[in-house]
């Protein structure tokens, strides 16, 4: 194409259309993704208006009465919002950071393994929990931790210890929840890192080996830096959802009624569940969603800005 405009010194910027034409094959390849987001992400967006109206389905979305921020009131009225926001964020930070660290560690370990059968078996076993539904996880946890008949207490008793009152001790729950999360997600998450390691140029490692680098040095100086961009991107992606709790996990592990555990386990989702369970209300639900999204958006912007300061190459935009 450039040959059509042979070496004009002050070439004017191409118009948008020309650029479009030039990249048409690339754009065509993007089309499915674009259409997908258009339909499932952009088209429903006017629905956010729900958060500001008193929705009733006879009048529909745009004819229902506009009520401003009224739908957000139930969140702040009792002053619980900050505790909930804190809990949700703290858990998510633990999930994101610990999760990624453990996933990276597992990926590296898998990579260093020599016996192929062991590698495959380990991978499969770690992968399996990901497919167990949260309801079952909750049931398994109950059968382990239950006071009267739980496995944990049976073991403790047979060893001569006192029974543990797990379901009335809020302080152990952050550990239980985070551990459960890691148990469920590590196998799955480590795949991405494992793939990244597989994609490395093997000559680098060989060169390092020839230069006398031991396994730890290879990991520290070659593999970890190689994984950094993957880590940053995954981090930025997950930060957008930092205010979205894993409802299934929390609800099934903690239950809806054990308030003695709520100080350390209550997140926005479980709170909303209790508030709206008996008062179905689309608008209030949308209001919560809006709060979470706007907050997540700001966090992504901030995090991206920070990343750009530290290592400009890895930022998203």
């Amino acid at each position, binding site marked *: 194409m450039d040959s059509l405009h042979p070496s004009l010194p002050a070439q004017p910027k191409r118009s948008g259309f020309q650029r479009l034409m030039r990249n048409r094959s690339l754009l065509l390849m993007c089309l499915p993704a674009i259409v997908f987001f258009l339909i499932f992400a952009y088209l429903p967006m006017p629905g956010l208006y729900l958060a500001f109206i008193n929705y009733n389905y006879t009048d529909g979305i745009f004819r229902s009465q506009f009520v401003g921020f009224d739908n957000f009131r139930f969140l702040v009225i009792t002053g619980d919002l900050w505790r909930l926001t804190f809990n949700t964020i703290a858990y998510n930070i633990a999930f994101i950071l610990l999760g990624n660290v453990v996933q990276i560690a597992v990926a590296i370990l898998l990579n260093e393994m020599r016996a192929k059968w062991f590698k495959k078996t380990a991978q499969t076993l770690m992968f399996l929990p990901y497919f167990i539904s949260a309801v079952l996880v909750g049931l398994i946890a109950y059968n382990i931790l239950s006071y009267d008949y739980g496995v944990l207490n049976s073991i403790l008793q047979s060893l001569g210890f006192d029974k543990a009152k797990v379901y009335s001790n809020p302080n152990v729950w952050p550990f239980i929840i985070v551990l459960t999360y890691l148990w469920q997600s590590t196998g799955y998450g480590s795949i991405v890192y494992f793939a990244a390691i597989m994609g490395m140029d093997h000559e680098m490692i060989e060169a390092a080996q020839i230069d006398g680098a031991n396994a730890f040095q290879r990991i520290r100086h070659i593999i970890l830096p190689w994984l950094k961009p993957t880590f940053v991107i995954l981090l930025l992606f997950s930060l957008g959802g930092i205010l979205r709790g894993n409802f299934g996990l929390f609800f099934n592990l903690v239950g809806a*009624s054990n308030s003695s555990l709520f100080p350390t386990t209550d997140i926005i989702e479980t709170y909303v569940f209790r508030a709206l369970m008996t008062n*179905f209300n689309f608008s209030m639900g949308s209001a919560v969603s809006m709060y979470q999204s706007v907050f997540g958006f700001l966090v992504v912007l901030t995090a991206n800005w920070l990343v750009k300061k530290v290592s400009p190459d890895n930022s998203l935009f």
Partner: protein
Amino acid sequence: MVKTKKAGTLLLASALTVALAACSGGNNNGGNSASGSATAPASGASSASASADAGKPDTSKFVTVNYVILGDKPKNGQFEKVLAKVNELLKAKVNAQIEWKWVEWADWQTKYNLLLASGEQLDLITVGTDWLDTWSNAQRGAFLPLSDDMLKTYAPQTYANVKPEEWAQTKYDGKVVILPENQFTQWVNHGFIYRGDWAKEAGLPDKLTSWDEIEKYLQYIKDNKPDVVPFDVAAGGSLNMIWDGWDQSFTKNLPLPVTSGFLPMFYAKSYDEPYTAVSPIFDDTFMNYVKKMKEWADKGFWREDVLNNKVDITTQLEAGLTGLMSHHTSQFSGLRPTMDKKQPGSDLQFFPFARPNQNLMATSITHGGTSIGAHSKNPERALMVYDLLRNDKEIYDLINYGIEGTQYEIKDNKRVLPAGYDETRDAFYSDFWGGRNDKLEIPSDQTWDKIDTLYQEYDSYKKPYIYGQFVFDKSKVQAELAAISQVSSQMGPSLSFGQMKDPEKAVQDFRDKLKQAGYDKVMAELQRQLDDYKKLIESQQ
């Protein structure tokens, strides 16, 4: 160039996050909203009201009448067989056939309300004022108002069997919109289910009459039956009804149809002052309750981890591992024969919470019922079909019990399962909850044959249901009600099961939280609406 790209990605990122919100917005809740918005009263189908053609209804054209039913569609083919038989009869009698339109249980509230709002042509619709949002739907014009003439002409048997004061409870805006299930006795009042044999062992009368006796019973089990959980409850079961039961036993309060999360908290003072809202949560009633439950918890009447208990209590009871559970009369009447088989001599008994203070309101006659859809094309024929479903012995038996010989056999005037009955292959249900009729019911050997003694007890002190037309309009207090429900569900369970160190302080905290959530505002609104309701009722008398 770089700049535009930056702006573009920024826009993209923001759009994505916001879009996520838009997608997930609907997931957080289901069901309806905003019952209060002013909508025009039902306008539909004026053709139907022209019922001048008295005498013989015209049935020359064959029509299909559909019926909105709540429940999961049966999958073993039995239902279709039964319906085919019903339709043969209907064709012969009124030249019509019926079709069940199932609203399956998953997310049923949303689906049901949307179906009614969709404007689809619905002929018969299952309704229930206390669980199916019937008044809000009437307000939105989902139902066809029925004139006396229409009812007399097309549903004469039903019309004759509903008393004028019963019709009054089915009216919205002065017009009948519901055909009530007024001829069907059902008691869903809660109470304790306990074992008569153990009560006798404990030296108690076999008919317990007070919470003190219940406590002695539990203590006896705790002391003498180490393998048995004296009082077993499962999280998510009907454990919230115990507070309601306490209030019923110790006051004359009447529960109002206003939901408030885990603990019901909106009551009217008494049958003599039914339009005065009271707050038992804020007086001694609740304090005594919490203290007593703390006492019971300390005595170890229930499991240490009661609030997370996932064990199925009924199974436990049947295995003889439970001393007491809480449920309603109807559940008890089904449990008793099972227990007689599984734990012979257990002499299962029921302690209705209504008993100590003789405080019982009958189940609303519109707990079940049927309405005609506003957009129905054949309301006349729908009424005729309904009249048969409810009053024709042959059709009634088919639709409620299935085919004689396959689903049931009659032995000593009772329904029994035929030999060779296979639950998976032969099970049948139709979920017809819109017009059952005591006169046509055949007792089953699956329910207790002496349940009448309980019914007689209830009849001796029951009062009619008086909030049949009360529709709480929550539009002005939605945020407060949501916040209150949250507080109630957050703190209610632990208050109810003594999971605290200092009950007085816990109750105080709870009350403070409720006040903060706007309890007073809701109470004021409730009282205002009760005043209006009083005027409405008095104007009808």
